[in-house]
């Protein structure tokens, strides 16, 4: 530290936004400022230099309120630093670090998306009681009724009682057993359908009851909906989707005005919905087997629904955008599950 070194810059006194040329001569523990200003002497320890950022000019604050703006130089490293951003600045200067950083970002995002997020959401959901979701479910039901999507059922009391009986058999001994409620509604808009509302309410449409060829077929659909609730899909989907939106917003953040932020989020979320459908299917197959009903019934009713869809000529959206796995896949998996029952017998563990 014996060599004398100097920095050329512009001095601003802070009283007027007018700069004059100045030179800082650093020697030992002191600094002398000369130039178009009255010569001044400062202790090195009293100066504070702004953090390095790219190769931009830096600002040296003097103890009397003055400031010298000067080009970046390694000489500035020996001055007291204003903040401790030095390490970040050092990382930012390296191309290798940037490349590694991009690699880490991609790895972290993929790992989070495929493993971390679903796992975390599952753990959180397991700790939140189903009751908290009830409000959402009730709101949803009220909305659907208010807008005439759901109307009073025309299914006879006898049939309802039969189905309720099957439903009770299905839910017996499940973790959320006490929260389930079964509702029948006439819903011309929805066609043959069943809905699992958050909080444990399952709505079956009249068209579905009429479409089903047997009680077991209807039970297969109910088992699928029970799977959604038992596996806490509503809450997990909400948690996972909000996290995806947050991450996408953080990454895109800068470029938010480009108006493309929504696209990746929507694409990413569609995958989760599809996975939950498959998970509910798998749960349903195992539950049916346990209760002595063949998953073949699930395949049957899926076929009936598909045939009806064909009649009403509504096409499936392309696979990657769809939230339901393509019907053919689901039917095949149900049949496979049914074959396994035949070979292994009933009573397998629920997933």
């Amino acid at each position, binding site marked *: 530290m014996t060599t004398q070194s100097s920095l050329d810059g512009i001095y*601003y*006194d*802070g*009283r*007027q*936004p*007018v*700069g004059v040329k100045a030179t800082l001569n650093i020697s030992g523990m002191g600094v002398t400022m000369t130039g178009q200003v009255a010569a001044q002497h400062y202790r090195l320890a009293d100066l*504070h230099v*702004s*953090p390095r*950022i*790219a*190769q*931009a*000019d830096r*600002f040296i*604050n*003097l*103890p009397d*309120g*003055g*400031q010298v*703006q000067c080009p970046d130089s390694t000489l500035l490293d020996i001055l007291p630093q*204003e*903040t401790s*951003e030095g390490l*970040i600045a050092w*990382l*930012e*200067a*390296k*191309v290798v*670090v*940037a*490349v590694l*950083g*991009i690699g*880490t*970002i991609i790895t*972290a995002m993929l790992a989070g998306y495929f493993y971390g997020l679903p796992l975390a959401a599952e753990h959180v959901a397991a700790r939140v009681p189903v009751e*908290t*979701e009830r*409000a*959402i479910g009730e709101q949803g039901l009220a909305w659907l009724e208010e807008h005439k999507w759901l109307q009073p059922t025309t299914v006879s009391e006898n049939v309802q009682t039969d189905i309720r009986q099957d439903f009770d058999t299905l839910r017996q001994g499940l973790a959320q057993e006490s929260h389930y409620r079964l509702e029948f509604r006439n819903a011309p808009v929805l066609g043959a359908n069943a809905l699992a509302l958050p909080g444990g309410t399952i709505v079956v449409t009249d068209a579905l009851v009429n479409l089903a060829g047997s009680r077991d077929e209807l039970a297969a659909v109910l088992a699928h909906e029970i799977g959604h609730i038992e596996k806490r899909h509503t809450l997990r989907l909400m948690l996972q989707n909000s996290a995806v939106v*947050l991450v996408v917003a*953080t*990454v*895109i*953040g*800068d*470029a938010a*005005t*480009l*108006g*493309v932020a929504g*696209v990746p989020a929507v694409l990413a979320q569609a995958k989760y919905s599809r996975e939950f459908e498959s998970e509910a299917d798998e749960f349903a197959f195992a539950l049916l087997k346990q209760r002595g009903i063949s998953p073949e019934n699930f395949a049957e009713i899926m076929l009936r629904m598909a045939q009806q869809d064909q009649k009403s000529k509504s*096409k499936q*959206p*392309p696979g990657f955008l769809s939230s339901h796995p393509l019907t053919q896949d689901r039917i095949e998996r149900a049949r496979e599950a049914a074959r396994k029952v035949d070979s292994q017998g009933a009573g397998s563990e629920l997933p």
Partner: protein
Amino acid sequence: MTTNQEFPDPAAGPVDVSRVCTASDAPWDERNDLLADAIRLSAEKPAEAEAQVRRLIEQGININARAGTERTALELAAYYETPANIRSMLTCASREGRAQASTPSAPPVAVPAATERVLDIEFRGSAREYFRIWAVNLCLTLLTLGIFSAWAKVRKKRYFYSRTTFDNTPFQYLGQPLPILKGRIIAVLLFLVWYLSSHFFVALMPVVIGVAAVLAPWVLVRSAAFNARYSAFRNMTFGFNASYRDAILTLYAWGLIPLILIGGFIAWKWQQPMLLGIALAVFAFYVPFWLARIKRFLVGRTLFGGTAGKLSITGGNYYFIYFKAGLIVSGLSILAGIAVFAITKTASNLAAGEEIAMLALLPFYLVYVFAYAYSQAQTGNLVWNNTQLGPVRFQSVLTGRGLAWLYITNGLAVLLSLGLLIPWAVVRSFRYRAQRLRGLLQGEWGTFRGSETSTVHAAGAEVGEIFDLDFSL
């Protein structure tokens, strides 16, 4: 109002600003005088006038050759190579009296008056530099589950401030990560409360909305104050001098009318289309005036060197822009609708409907982008061209077409590169905006007066106040 007044032509690609700047070191006034001389001479001594202009072009002057089109030296050199061209330019200029030297200022977009000095705004960074900063900070943000985002914001702002020069001096960002982190934690908590109440505890919703309405003016003032206080230029920090009460008056004084209308709409669920129509019309009419009010408040309360900013716009100005943007949307939507109809019709004949139906949304998206770009450009110009800060005023010449091109190309680049070109797109947008904005100084920088408390040194010492919060993104 005219949009054809541009500094550089975007179609010609980025102008090499550094070359123009080094060449145009001659003082502005002197160059204007020389040009005025040349125009006077052109009538009787064309040869001398021509030589004069050649010298000016060599020096790199920016000349308004024709009404409104300012060209840089490099372009001019190519244009006026031949004596005949230079002569025709001079005759044209002297006849129209449009050369810079003799043009009186005509707001909102005016060529500088003879006594004004141009203060260039330049962005001196590069996509390469910003890419490294972006990658490192984003990586650390993700690895720390978002906590590092406050530090990342500081680095980003520091970069863009330090790389932006005004009259050849960079800005300085002084914000510290901890107040930003505090602000973000509070924002996340507020968001959670809102999210939970909107989904789970609906009965609480009115209370949450009420609290948000009370907090909004406070958030507005805190953020504006933080940003002003921690932005410095030439060792003088900016200031924002407004109380919570001022913000309430700005946001809500006339806001009660649309609030009652909208509140009534939500609470009583007005079914009559008539009432709904009236409510929406009043609201649509009111919004531009409200925006103008907020802008005037933000600019008018910003201080630099003891001088408060002044923004002289009315809601009427905004109204006009939004009205035209509305016309663009409806006009282009009809065209897009016809195109989509034609495409889907052919497509359904070919029995390949579904995928093409997705593409059919594209024209509407483009219409939206164009209308957005138009209103962004026009409102940006409106605000800058009517802002006065002591002896400094501004000229902004953004164009809707330029911004739309920027948005579309940036969007494509980001999508196709899976996000890797985000830093490039951000830098490009920033540079474009900087290129199309400049200041004009009438008088001296010395008119601004700093104080003990406005030095960077003083701002650094007070960091850590309890209400030192930043909520802005």
